[in-house]
């Protein structure tokens, strides 16, 4: 049996989640619900929950503020939010779990199942570190990312990544230190997360870090040479946009 704490400033959201958890097949006991950050901090200290359902937008702050005030996190966190693009992107970067409101029964079940499969609490703590690191880091090219692998997660600095190469439903990530990490996500997943100006999809199978392009050789689409001396073909339809990005 897991002890759950719900932090949300709106009663109807708490009620809904409570209803759903009660009818869930997973054995979850709601120990308390809090509406403010202060209440929540006290409650966490006193009741040591296993799971924290945390709303992003709280009346007097955010769920992140709450986490940042804790010395250590020895419980699982599942964020809840209705519509916050900024927060969603942050969760994806750090591979933290979240539920969209109104919460769907199936989604909740999936989240709880994932939670049960998780090996240790250490991972959650690492993911939250990434989350805070990314909040503090204003430079978009040195964000950190949690990469889902078959074995678990690998944390990487985006600065470390030279390129992504697609391999059906997997993606190989080549790093500066010559390591190859195989992620259990499609290349499109990474393209969507890293949609700033640092990474560019030059080809159906290639997403590259623009900072590591050493040379562009003209051709029908042409090809690029990266700092690790790999030559990568550029798709004809990506050529113009790539040149534009390289010039900027």
């Amino acid at each position: 049996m897991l002890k759950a704490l719900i932090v949300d400033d709106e009663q109807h959201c708490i009620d809904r989640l409570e209803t759903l958890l009660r009818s869930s097949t997973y054995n979850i006991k709601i120990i308390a619900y809090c509406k403010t950050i202060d209440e929540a901090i006290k409650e966490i200290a006193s009741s040591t929950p296993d799971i924290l359902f945390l709303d992003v937008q709280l009346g007097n702050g955010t769920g992140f503020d709450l986490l940042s005030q804790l010395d250590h996190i020895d419980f699982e966190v599942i964020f809840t939010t209705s519509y916050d693009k900024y927060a969603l992107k942050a969760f994806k970067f750090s591979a933290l779990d979240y539920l969209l409101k109104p919460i769907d029964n199936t989604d909740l079940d999936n989240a709880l199942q994932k939670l049960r499969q998780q090996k240790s609490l250490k991972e959650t703590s690492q993911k939250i570190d990434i989350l805070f690191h990314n909040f503090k880091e204003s430079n978009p090219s040195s964000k950190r990312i949690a990469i889902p692998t078959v074995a678990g997660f690998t944390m990487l600095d985006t600065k470390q990544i030279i390129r992504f190469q697609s391999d059906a439903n997997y993606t190989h990530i080549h790093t500066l230190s010559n390591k190859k990490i195989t992620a259990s996500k499609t290349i499109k997943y990474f393209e969507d997360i890293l949609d700033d100006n640092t990474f560019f999809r030059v080809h159906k199978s290639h997403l590259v870090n623009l900072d590591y392009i050493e040379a562009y050789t003209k051709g029908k689409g042409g090809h690029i040479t990266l700092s690790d001396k790999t030559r990568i073909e550029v798709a004809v339809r990506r050529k113009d946009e790539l040149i534009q990005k390289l010039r900027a």
Partner: protein
Amino acid sequence: MSRPTQKKYCFLLICLVHFFGTSQQNKLDSLKNELQTHTLKDTIRAGLLIELASELTYSEPNKGFSLIEEALAISKKNIWIKGEALAQRQKGNLHYVLADNLNAMDAYQKALVLSRKIPDKQLEASVLSNLGNIHADLKEYDRALENYRAYLETSQAMGNRAEEIKALSNIAIIYNDTENFEEGVSYLNKALTLAKEEGNDLFIAAITNNLALAYKNLGEHQKALFHYQEAMAMAQKIGNKYIEASALNSIGKINVLLNNYAVAETYASNALSLSKEIGAVEWEADSWEVLSKVYEQNGKMPEALNAYKKHIQLRDSVLNEEKKSELTRKEMQFQMERQQAVANEEIKRQQLVKNIYLIGAIFFVLMAMFGYYIYKRRRDELEKKKTAEFNAKVSETELKALRSQMNPHFIFNSLNSISDFISKNDILQADDYLVKFSKLTRAILENSEKKSITLSEDLELMELYMQIETIRLQNKLHHQITIDQDIEPNNTLVPPLILQPFIENSIWHGIAPKNGDGHIDIKIEKEGDMLKYVVDDNGVGQSKKNVRGKKSNGSFGIKITKSRIDILSHIKNKKGSVNLMDKPEGVRVEITLPLELQF
């Protein structure tokens, strides 16, 4: 006009002729007086100036130039060509006397041209003769002959016998100088015949003397002697001691050759005394030579030596004189050639400079044209690109506006749908429906912000939409999506939610009012470089909807979508289209869009 180099062998008639015009002091004075009184710048003054310059030729040639220049100026001003020609000839004479052959020739050439312009044959003849003399001096025999021949022709043309004789004699001299003695003799004979006809004894004497020399050179000593005797006799008759002395010397020389030493001595002695009398050093030297040979033969060695010494002495003085003039001539020639060479060089250089400038200018113009062409092409390209970018931006903005209009339209339709569902179902089902609908709404809101999404993403959305509508219509709605094999849904980009308003229209106005199950069939095909959607329903059809006149929202969404397709077609410069057509049962919608691939 003296020709010292040739005096040794022959008498130049031209020289002799000049002796007649030897200046007289009183004539000079009278001319000077006349000039002083006649100050008016007219042809008379010009004539006087030329005459005075002519008188000064041998005494003070340098003073003649200023007079000539004035005469030239007056003649030109009064357009008196003859005066100009005479002045140029006199200028040539002055230069010639000063051994400036180049300028002399230049002046003579001008005089020649002018004389031919007038025309004045007499003048022309004299100028041609002078030109011939200069060329002969410069040993340019071909050109000398050329001028003398022209001189001859001109003389013959005007019937001037004296000039004709001079021309023939001069031609003969050239032949003799070039050792073509037969030709020389032939011309001299012609000249002699004419001179005899004319009865000009001086000419006869001079020509006979020259003829004798020619025979001597041909080795015909008897003929030579005979002619020398004749020349001597004629010279004595007219009292010309030059010809006489020359003839006497020549007779002496031939007698030495014939070993008649006694005769030779007599002639040589006579020649010597005569030469001394007239101060002809050259012939004096000749006489001493003959005498030295005679003494040698007679065994009078001291006399012979003495005579020889005198010969050498005198000869050297003559030779020195000759050498000097030869040197001057050579120098002249060299100067002339050098000037010519320098002039040619200069002309070449100028030509080169001109060519370089021309090539440079052409090159510059070509470069400028090329540069302008490049500049213009680049500018036009930039302009075009800018215009295109601007148009694209405008279109993009319009599309964005249209997409954002889609959102409220969709949300309110959704709310209608939810309210419809809640009114017909229980709370739990309604809640489930609502959660699903919120997911769809979120997805549609997210995707509708994007310019384009992949076909597979768009179809996922449509699938979700139709599933939800299926729940609402309590499984009355069935649908099927077929994608052509040529199409890669993951690599094909489409504008988000293009189909949604048409599907919505089919469901709400076609299938919902219908009794019984409805079917929506979506086909996606590739037609060349276009993507074609075909949506078929078996609903109640368009006409019935219109009769019912309900719900204009569908047509509003369709209107916006049509506008979006129009703008997209404009951006891609391809013709997209939307066609709605009635079928016996239901409606078919065909949408074509420019096919766009991601990679």
